[in-house]
Each structure stands twice: as C-alpha cells, then as structure tokens.
C-alpha cells in the first residue's frame, strides 16, 4: 500500500492533464489502427493514417479548402446576424412586461422547432442556395440569444432598479447602467449556445441543399464511399468548432471583462 501511495503523483496539475490527454489520444489512435487493420476494409473503417492523409488533402487541396472556408463564412455571417437580431429582439421583448408576456409562448414554440425543418420553406421562398442556408443558420442563433437576453433582463436585481429610481436615473441611464450590465453574462451564454447550434445547422443545410461546404463534402464522400474523407471532414468540423468556441471565450473575457466583476467568468 505504502509503495502505491508513494508512487502516486499529483494528477491535478496542468502538465499532468495535458500528458494524460495525449496518452488518451495515443491509446485510442493505436486501438483504432489495430481494429482497422483487423477489419481490413477501409470502406468500413479507415485507419487513422488514411484519415490523416485525407485530412491533409482536404486542407491543402484548393477546392476542398474553399469548402472549409464556405462553411466558416456561413457560420460567421449567420451567427453574427442571428446574435445581433436575437439581442435586439430580446432587449425589445424583455424591456416591456406586456410584450414579454405576449410573445413568450411564440418564442418558446419557435425555439423548439428544429432550424433544419425551416430549410424547406426557406428554399421555397428564397430558392436553393446561399440565402436559404444563411436563413437556417440565423434561425439557429436567434432564439438562444433572444431568450437568454430576456432572462438576463428579467433577472436584474429589483433593489438596483429601485435604487436607480431613487437617485433619479433616467430610463436610458437605467437601461445602459443597470439592465445591460446585468444581462451581458446571460447574453453571452446564449451566444455561445447559438454558436454551437449554428455549426449544427450549417452542416445539415449543406447536406440537404448545399453545393459546397464541409457538410456537402461529408455527404458527397458518402455517395462516393470515400470513408476516409468522411472522417477527415468530421475531424475538421470538431477542430474548427472547438477553435471557434475558444475564440469566443477569449473575446468574451477580454471585451466584456468588466461585466464579470465579482463573478466567475467560466
């Protein structure tokens, strides 16, 4: 027992976590390689080495790189437009109790409908192409942001509002100095969810009506039974999504630091 206790290392450090993570990746990759070799059919399970080759091709080939950039562009455009829209919508709805009570049921209804279901009306109204894909991405981003903005405004400390009234702060001042700071952390939670949903929506839309993009590449790879390319596409999606999330959190903590005073900005 004592030998085990002595050999036990501290696993909570950053270095230990990175090391364990790398170990995990190596173990899984080795197991994957072994299973792939045992299966012996790259159409069913391509080996990690094949996937890496396909991945390098996907990123270096100008054609597929355009697909990657198309997806990124759609996510960014749709997410920004949707978030701004959601913010305005949420602020408008959240600031007036009557409007909130009036529109709440509809927001909750629309939020439950999968963005991808709107691809059909979108294509009928906007045609098969870019606007329809963007519509679906915007739809995916609007509701989390709007609903969290409303929550943020509703969660404002009533005492702060009373204090603002007591010191004679104007409605505009109350909005800018009390409501906005209280709502920002909520808005950011919504925006982060919206970013993830935008990635989901864009892949679905590209698979169904897209002529380019990572979703299209993955769908196309299936038609041509290019399983390695399918996996490469999945890998790129995961990495790009992760990088965007990192970027979002980084921007949030640098741009909106002051709104997180006294709380833990996760």
């Amino acid at each position: 027992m004592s030998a085990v206790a002595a050999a036990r290392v501290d696993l909570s450090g950053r270095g230990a976590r990175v090391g364990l993570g790398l170990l995990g990746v190596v173990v899984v990759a080795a197991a994957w390689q072994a299973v792939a070799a045992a299966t012996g059919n790259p159409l069913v399970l391509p080996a990690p080495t094949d996937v890496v080759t396909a991945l390098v091709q996907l990123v270096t080939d100008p054609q597929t790189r355009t697909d990657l950039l198309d997806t990124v562009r759609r996510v960014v455009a749709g997410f920004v437009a949707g978030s701004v829209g959601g913010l305005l919508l949420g602020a408008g709805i959240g600031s007036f109790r009557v409007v909130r009570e009036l529109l709440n049921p509809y927001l909750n209804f629309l939020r439950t409908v999968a963005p991808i279901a709107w691809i059909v009306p979108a294509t009928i109204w906007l045609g098969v192409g870019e606007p329809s894909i963007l519509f679906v991405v915007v739809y995916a981003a609007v509701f989390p942001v709007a609903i969290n903005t409303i929550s943020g405004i509703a969660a404002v400390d009533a005492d702060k509002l009373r204090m603002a009234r007591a010191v004679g702060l104007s409605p505009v001042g109350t909005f800018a100095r009390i409501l906005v700071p209280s709502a920002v952390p909520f808005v950011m939670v919504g925006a982060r969810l919206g970013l993830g949903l935008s990635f989901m929506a864009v892949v679905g839309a590209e698979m169904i009506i897209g002529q380019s993009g990572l979703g299209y590449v993955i769908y196309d790879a299936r038609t041509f039974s290019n399983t390695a390319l399918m996996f490469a596409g999945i890998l790129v999606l995961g990495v790009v999504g992760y990088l965007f999330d990192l970027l979002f959190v980084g921007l949030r903590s640098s741009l909106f630091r002051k709104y997180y005073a006294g709380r833990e900005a996760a």
Partner: protein
Amino acid sequence: MSTIASPEEDLRTPVVARPRPAVRVPSDALARAARRTGLTLGSLVVLVAAWEWGSRAYDVPFLFPGPLAVAESLADNLADGTLAASTGASLWRIVAGFVLGSVAGVVVGLVLGASRVASGMAAPFVTFFRFVPPLAWFGPVLVWFGAGETSKVLLIVYTSLFVVALNTIEGSTKLPQDLSRMAGVAGASWWQRMFWVTLPASVPYIVAGARVALGNAFMTVVSAEMLGASAGLGVMVNNGMTSTNVPDVFTAILVLGVAGLVCDRLFVLAVNTFGRRFRGQQTVDVA
C-alpha cells in the same frame, strides 16, 4: 420559476426566467394568470388573422399557405392517419435515443468524475465530440449500421450523451467532499458512496443536462429523418418539399413545435413531481 438553474453558467438551459415573484396573495396570482391567458389568446387571434391576410396578399398563396390551408392539411393528415404515424415514429426515436443517451451519459459522467486518470485521458475526446454536429456522423453510422432505425436512434443517443455526461461530471466533482467522507466513515463502500451520495447530489446537474439533451433530440430527429426514413415528421417535411405541398410542411413544423413544447413541459413536471427530494442542499433549484 420554471428555470432549471444549473449552477454552471455555461451549461445552463436557455429558458425564460420570470422575475422571482414577491410574496403575493393567491387571488392576485389568479388574476395574473387570467390576464396572461387573455393576452395569449388575444394575440393568437391577431396573429392568425395577420397570417391569413399575409397569405392572401402574397403573390402565390399556394407557396405561403395561410392558417386555413394549414388547418385543412392538419385535418387531412389526422384523418388518414399520416400524422399519427409520423409523430409516433419520430417520438419513438426521440424517446429511445434520449433515454439511452442520457443513461449512458450519466454512467460516463460518473466514471469520468470519479477518476482523474480516466477524465484526463478522455478530456480531448469529450471536448472534440462536443463540437461535431450529430449529422456529420450520418455517413459513418450509415456505413456501420445501415439505413434502419438503429442509425437514427444512435444519432440521437450521440446528441444526448455528451450534454448529460458533461453536466454529470460537473455535478459529481462539485459534490462537497465532506459528504462523501462522512459516508466512508460510516462504513459505506465505494459503490455505495457512488450510488447513495454522488449520484443523488448530481441529480440537479443531470436534470439540467437532460433537458438540453431533449431539445437536441428534437432537432436531430428531423434532420436524420430528412436524409432517409420511411416515416416521421422529418419525412413529412421532406415529402412536402419534393411534392411542393407547403401546407404539409407547415403542419409538420407546427406539430414538431407543439410536441417539443409538450415534452419539455412534461419533463419539467416530472422533475418537479419526482425530483423534489434532490432539491435543496446548495442553492440548486430543480425546475
């Protein structure tokens, strides 16, 4: 409060929080409820009227069906049983995938929460898979499991698993160590502590994750069905597209929204009914 307030900000469900009511006399609450119902009904009438008017004013009413056309399609689909079959097929997939995925998520979460080595090794994968949309797996899943039910249910399992697992990890690692130690001192084995201490303490987090997972399941089922299935609401949407039967598409969307809303409400109701004893401790508010 209809909010599940997961203490972890980033994992919180997006739900509309109403301002915490001050102490209020019941008759006042009743009047408020009546007023709210009146508002909703009134706005619904206005909305439906505006929708019908918009549809008639649109150049090609056929492409922008009004509420009457949608109601007609709804009645038709109800009468010939299409709607019941589609909704049943979709709901079955959602429930199967959601239950399997949530249970697997809890197990994975507890294991990862209990072992530093396991969680360290799994961390890159958990982070990675979180960002791979379920639909991206459509191809591989199809190759491995064919075009049948298994594939579609698995995609839903996938969307549910990670949200629930992440929340479970969060809950089990935030467990006050003293509770677990006390159980140990009282003679509880590792398994007993896991089942009687860690799991109950994680329930509020698990519930918050499961509610998000339920929403995800509704989103995933539609796209999975649109890419290939014989029945389901997603199929209805897709058929509506190929045969330009727009009212059918709207009917499917309407049913999807209502079913999603009803399931969410039922989930909250179930949590409020059966989850009371897990509430408390910390400041966690279960729905």
